[in-house]
């Protein structure tokens, strides 16, 4: 069942490359949150209630409810509809994301490490790299935030892959930190668009000496 969610997760990555509407990005992020919950849920063995609740809060509440709602607010605030500024045509992006997915699947195939759950590794690496790629090709601060969140989702999967032993309290601090980071980035994005009347990063190039 885990593979089921992993494959759907990789399909969402393809659609990230395909879509050019800001609204779709938000929906896809929300879907990814639910998928992450599915992935974790079918992997918890005999689970403590606290752990389960934490995962529930982290994936469903934060990743697929709080952050998308917040992003939607930011989107409406800035009147964002479409992202025109991709530097590379979508056609090539789709090829790139496919190559990334294949690459990361094959890498995890050849990993042969007992300690690492390579099934999560497959899509985690692809997600991180695709997030970075997403940031590079877009010239819009909103899309940059979306790319950051894709990276975060990839890191979440990675933490499953390595079966992280991070204590719950610290885990909670990490979650809180990331959430704060997203909120602050969103607030700053509002500032940027108020100030520069645009969310394109071309405006943000005055500091060079």
């Amino acid at each position: 069942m885990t593979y089921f969610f992993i494959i759907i997760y990789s399909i969402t990555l393809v659609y990230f490359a395909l879509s050019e509407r800001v609204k779709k990005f938000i929906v896809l992020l929300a879907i990814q949150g639910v998928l992450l919950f599915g992935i974790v849920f079918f992997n918890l063995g005999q689970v403590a209630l606290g752990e389960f609740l934490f995962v529930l809060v982290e994936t469903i509440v934060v990743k697929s409810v709080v952050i998308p709602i917040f992003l939607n607010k930011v989107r409406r605030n800035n009147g964002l509809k479409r992202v025109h500024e991709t530097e590379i045509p979508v056609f090539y992006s789709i090829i790139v994301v496919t190559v990334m997915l294949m690459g990361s699947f094959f890498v995890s195939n050849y990993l042969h490490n007992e300690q690492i759950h390579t099934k999560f590794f497959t899509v985690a690496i692809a997600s991180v790299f695709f997030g970075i790629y997403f940031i590079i090709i877009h010239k819009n601060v909103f899309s940059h935030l979306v790319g950051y969140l894709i990276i975060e989702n990839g890191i979440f999967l990675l933490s499953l892959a390595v079966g992280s032993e991070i204590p719950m309290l610290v885990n909670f601090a990490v979650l809180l930190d990331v959430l704060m980071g997203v909120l602050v980035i969103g607030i700053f994005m509002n500032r940027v668009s108020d100030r520069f009347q645009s969310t394109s990063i071309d405006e943000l190039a005055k500091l060079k000496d």
Partner: protein
Amino acid sequence: MVWIGVISMILAALIFPGITAIIKAKVGGRKAPPLLQPVYDVVRLFKKGAVYSATTGLIFRIAPLVYFASVVAVLLLIPFGGQKGILSFAGDFVFFAYLLALGKFMMIVAAMDTGSGFEGMGANREALYSMLVEPAFFILMGSLALFAGSISFYDLYLSLHIQTHLSYLTAVTAIYVLAYIAMVENSRLPVDDPKTHLELTMVHEVMVLDYSGFDLALINISNWLKFSIFGTLIANFLLPFYLPHYAQILLFFLIQFGFATVVGGLESFRARNKMAKNPQFIITLSAIAILVFLTALIITEKFSLN
């Protein structure tokens, strides 16, 4: 049973365009045409002679025949209801794809033969889209072949009925991809709009502008047959092969009807893609097909993941 399959497919092909037209009329609030109106039109066309432009040559005249013949030959390859097709051999799906490609190639060459700028443009687009859609089809079939451990249509479908969550996922994605491949192959929405009246925005329609009478009728019939063929490919994913024959045939027509309805609905509600967006739309199909392939690798445990 084997011949019943072929006859069912031909019957489905005859009613398919009618159903689509009725759906579109209903959704658009118009009075629906009779179910067999497209058939009547074709019969009328058969009664007419053909007019050929003075600049065209032999290729232009034989292209519709080759096209028709290739599609009819393809019809014989398709398995139906858990039975082998009339022609069934290892690697027949490759033969399938290239028979279709042969027909298409003839149409493209014929369009170039007319020397019309519009037709050349249409041929160009058609060639591009066919080229892009080809990897999707082969990757999809390749992943199914991986399941089956065999490379003939018949085995591909039989092996799909392993009951795991992932094979459901593969089936759904495969149907999705196949449905869109059918749309691209038949030049329907969202890649091409058969109803457009502007040559600049046409793809397939502009290629056959110079045909008339008998030739046009052949081309139309071939198009219907292609729809029916792809519909059968999809239906084979869904048909439970353990049912009795009559139930399977009934289900087959239901699925074809459903497919026609979906096509009609899609064409009523959806606008055509921008021309520039078509390639990326089609390459997405390949990307998803690759994911199906990766899934197949996981299911067949060619990947050692833990």
